[in-house]
């Protein structure tokens, strides 16, 4: 009855009870948990038997050799992070890390509202694929909110750890880095801009002058027979009442009459904005600033044109 094994088990039970460390009660808000309490466990030594199975004298021999007595019997493999016990450990870790950073760097100067650099963050699908975890939209949005808050830190004072953390969440290709070259007025007072409409494109050279306009080397009336087309070509100047203040030299190609006229409209507006940037709201209201994205719809199989169906036959 009093076999050595039973005795050892009983001892093990009592010793495990003794060696249990009471953890402190978890804090109220898990986003602001302090991770300093958690440490990785000591590596498991497989060359020695479990501490519980060793005799007392063997155990003491281990102490004399100044090797830590590992009670293999009561050994617990503690996870590296408590997030192990969540459904999405890596996500939870990320969230907590970002929360820490936010809290830590809360007092750093931030950029004004709307002036933070525009970043394309990873989509939830990209994140889920990367981490291979079932992250929910609500959860990911919370993550994005933290990222955006960290993004507002002034770039000159942004700590390296924050930068490193933000980099891991940015998309590989940042579309917002693709900014158009700013249109400037050169040394001769000429600004050059390009506009497109349907399949036409136009390049306009705008310079201060008396109101002359030449399209492909021909006068305005010679090139555009319709008054409507003429007006729309120089609409940017007409609606701001600056027709007599600038000279226009335009090169248009592709498309038809109206397409070229509208392309010149856009190009003229962009060139005018180089001279007078404050006219942007007025030109936007006039409809000169947005590039009309409409194109001719392609013909589809089974239809006569893009949408026109052949005559319906009952049978």
């Amino acid at each position: 009855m009093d076999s050595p094994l039973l005795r050892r088990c009983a001892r093990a039970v009592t010793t495990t009870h003794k060696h249990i460390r009471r953890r402190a009660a978890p804090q109220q808000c898990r986003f602001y948990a302090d991770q300093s309490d958690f440490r990785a466990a000591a590596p498991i030594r497989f060359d020695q038997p479990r501490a519980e199975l060793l005799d007392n004298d063997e155990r003491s021999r281990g102490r004399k050799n100044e090797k830590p007595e590992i009670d293999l019997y009561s050994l617990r493999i503690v996870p590296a992070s408590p997030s192990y016990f969540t459904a999405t450990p890596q996500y939870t870790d990320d969230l907590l890390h970002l929360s820490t950073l936010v809290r830590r760097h809360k007092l750093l100067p931030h950029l004004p509202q709307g002036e933070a650099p525009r970043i394309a963050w990873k989509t939830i699908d990209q994140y889920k694929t990367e981490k291979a975890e079932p992250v929910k939209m609500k959860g990911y949005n919370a993550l994005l909110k933290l990222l955006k808050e960290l993004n507002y830190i002034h770039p000159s004072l942004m700590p390296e750890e924050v930068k490193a953390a933000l980099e891991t969440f940015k998309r590989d290709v940042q579309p917002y880095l693709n900014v158009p070259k700013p249109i400037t007025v050169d040394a001769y007072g000429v600004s050059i801009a390009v506009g497109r409409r349907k399949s036409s494109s136009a390049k306009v050279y705008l310079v201060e002058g008396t109101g002359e306009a030449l399209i492909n080397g021909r006068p305005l009336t010679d090139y555009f027979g319709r008054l409507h087309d003429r007006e729309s070509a120089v609409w940017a100047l007409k609606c701001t009442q600056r027709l007599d203040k600038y000279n226009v030299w335009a090169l248009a190609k592709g498309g038809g009459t109206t397409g070229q006229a509208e392309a010149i409209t856009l190009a003229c507006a962009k060139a005018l904005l180089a001279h007078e940037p404050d006219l942007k709201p007025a030109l936007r209201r006039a409809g000169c600033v947005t590039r009309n994205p409409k194109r001719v719809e392609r013909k589809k199989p089974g239809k006569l044109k893009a949408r026109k169906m052949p005559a319906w036959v009952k049978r």
Partner: protein
Amino acid sequence: MSLQICLRCLSRPSAPSQIRLVPTTTNKQTAAFTTSTPHAAAGRIQVSQMKPKRTGNKPTATRPVRVKRLSPKNVPQRTGRPPAPGERKALRKRVVLSNTNALEVQGMPDLNPWQLFDKSMHGSVAGLPDDVVDPLRVVEAFKPTQGWSLFRRPATLVRSETVEMASWVQEVHNSQEGKTVRKVLFGERGSGKSVLLLQAMAMAFSKGWVVVNFPEAKDLTIGHTSYVPLYRNNQLYIQPHYTASLLAALPKANPILADLRPSREHNLPISVPPNISLARLCDLGKDPEIAWPIFQAVWSELTAPSQPDEGEGLVRPPVLMALDGLHHIMCESEYLDRDGKHLHAHNLALVQHFLSHLSGASPLANGGMIIAATSGSNKAASPALDFALRRNEALASSPGADIPAWDPYRKIDTRSLKAMDGVEVWRIEGLSKEEARGIMEYYAKSGMMRQTVSDTLVGERWTLSGGGIVGELERGSVRMRI
């Protein structure tokens, strides 16, 4: 009646005066100045016809039975009286010179060739006096496509080209040895070439010159009038009916012809009394059979040296000959010769007559002006004339200028090139901003343009009309009612 839409500019006439009614009857006794439609003037509209017809199928004396148009078997019958021959053409060519709805511009000076040199006239609009308007109408100087019908009375802008033209007229009038000014006007469509011709004719009429006008050179070569080869001459063809109409209009437009007598004998197919007036001689030429010999006789009389001391009736004034649409006579005509090939326009006697004077081969003994204008809207394909205009312009600009050369591997009409040798060409460009302001103020004073004439508006319209092209300026300001 549906409103018309201009297919080019998609404008609709918003003023009631611009809506044209199409009458179905004609009355040949309408006065030249009337603005009422011939249909209304005929007085043949019955009250019952003006009411909208509700019940339709009873035949009456004047109209046959109306057939329903719904069934495809029955072709709709034409009702009403068909137009008389020439009525549609008369309607098409009808020129209205007055609009009673427009305001009268107070203090508008008359186009006085003696006063045109005054700087104050330049840039303002001058009215045409009545004694000039009637002869201009007879020679068809007014065109139906021009905007005469929009204003109270005919008036034209005095632009820098007008002042220059007036200086030439003055020079010719004052010269003793019979100076002849020969010019070809060319430029963009709507730049005012035809109106400059009209102004030259107006100045000539007021100075008492004899004016011969070919309003549309197209009519000479399009093949719509009769043509006959000259006796024993395979090259030249005369156009009897055209010549006859020209001779019919000549004394009506130039009353001075009634005072002139022939200075020599002429070999004519009919016997004429020796003291016949030139006006009566022209009247005899209304018969197409003898029109050409009489025209030649009249012309030789007009270009005979003036003999003011010999007797009355032998004074010869200078002659102005004008032609519009030069491209049509610088290419092949629609007439066919006996082999079935197209005749070149230069084979027509009238065309040859004009071109010999234009090139300077036939001088005018008493001086005068020979002016031709190209037409931007009614152009025949004549690469030779286009090239000749560019070449002559380059030659006149500066001696060392880059003179264009024709590609020797491409065929060119050498006759037209030769005809244009040594002829001065004159490019008519857009108005200046001051002149544009002047004409826009006239539009505003006439009540046809409602905006206030400010520098911004003038600049805007000047640019939108392609640098002050008058025709486009008028279209943008007066015809398009935005």
